[in-house]
């Protein structure tokens, strides 16, 4: 199911794309492609596109693998939109709520050789804003923001 909304704005023409994606790794690629398409149209440079793409991939992997646990009955709601000054992405799963605060600091010396636990750290590193909230209906929603003029 796809929803495309376009609204006039005196500075810009924002567009928001929303998809309900299957809990598969193919959806990770789909979300990245969608996000990069919107981000490119918004005017982000190559360096920022790489960061946005990676943040989207890490968020989608969290939703598909850790949130929905590949459950074919559960979807990942993914939306990406931009206005004159920012790109906003939302990724919501239908899984058990997960407390990211319990993820050990991947930069702590004792954790450097851990083989997992770097995803959220990378998202925070690459985006300007990061918010996580537990949904009343179950699941977790991540909101990622990248400023269009951040340099």
């Amino acid at each position, binding site marked *: 199911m796809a929803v495309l909304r376009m609204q006039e704005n005196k500075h810009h023409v924002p567009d928001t794309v929303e998809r309900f994606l299957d809990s598969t*790794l193919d959806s*990770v690629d789909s979300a990245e492609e969608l996000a990069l398409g919107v981000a490119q149209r918004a005017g982000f440079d190559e360096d920022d596109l*790489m960061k946005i793409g*990676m943040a989207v*991939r*890490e968020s989608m*992997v969290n939703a598909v*693998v850790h949130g929905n646990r590949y459950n074919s009955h559960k979807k990942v709601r993914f939306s990406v939109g931009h206005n004159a000054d920012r790109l906003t992405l939302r990724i919501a799963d239908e899984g058990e709520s997960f407390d990211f605060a319990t993820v050990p600091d*991947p*930069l702590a010396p004792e954790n*450097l*050789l*851990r*083989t*997992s636990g*770097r*995803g959220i*750290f*990378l998202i925070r*590193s690459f985006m300007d804003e990061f918010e996580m909230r537990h949904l009343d209906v179950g699941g977790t929603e991540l909101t990622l923001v990248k400023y269009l003029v951040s340099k």
Partner: protein
Amino acid sequence: MSVKLNTRQVGDVTVVDVAGRITLGEGSSALRDALREMVSKSQKKILLNLGDVSYIDSSGIGELVSGFTTVTNSGGQLKLLNLNKRVKDLLQITKLYTVFDVHEDEAGAIRSF
């Protein structure tokens, strides 16, 4: 394109030319399987040439760390060669750049074992 691995022997060093994307799924599992096989064959000196790696995610970083630990624990050495800017930046922000022995020149890397 997913990951592509090509292995060659230079003296007693096994050089693995890695190309493509090391991401969750096929990419990271191919690298994991290749490194485990080398360790099982008692190959102790492994040089991962990442020059043609276009993309690596946190899962791919995890596989590099896992490979490093597996090879080190078996008494071997795993070193990295030809990191592009993206991979280098990722290893730097995750503080792994100093964990790995990283080289820019293959001949020098071979001699360092």
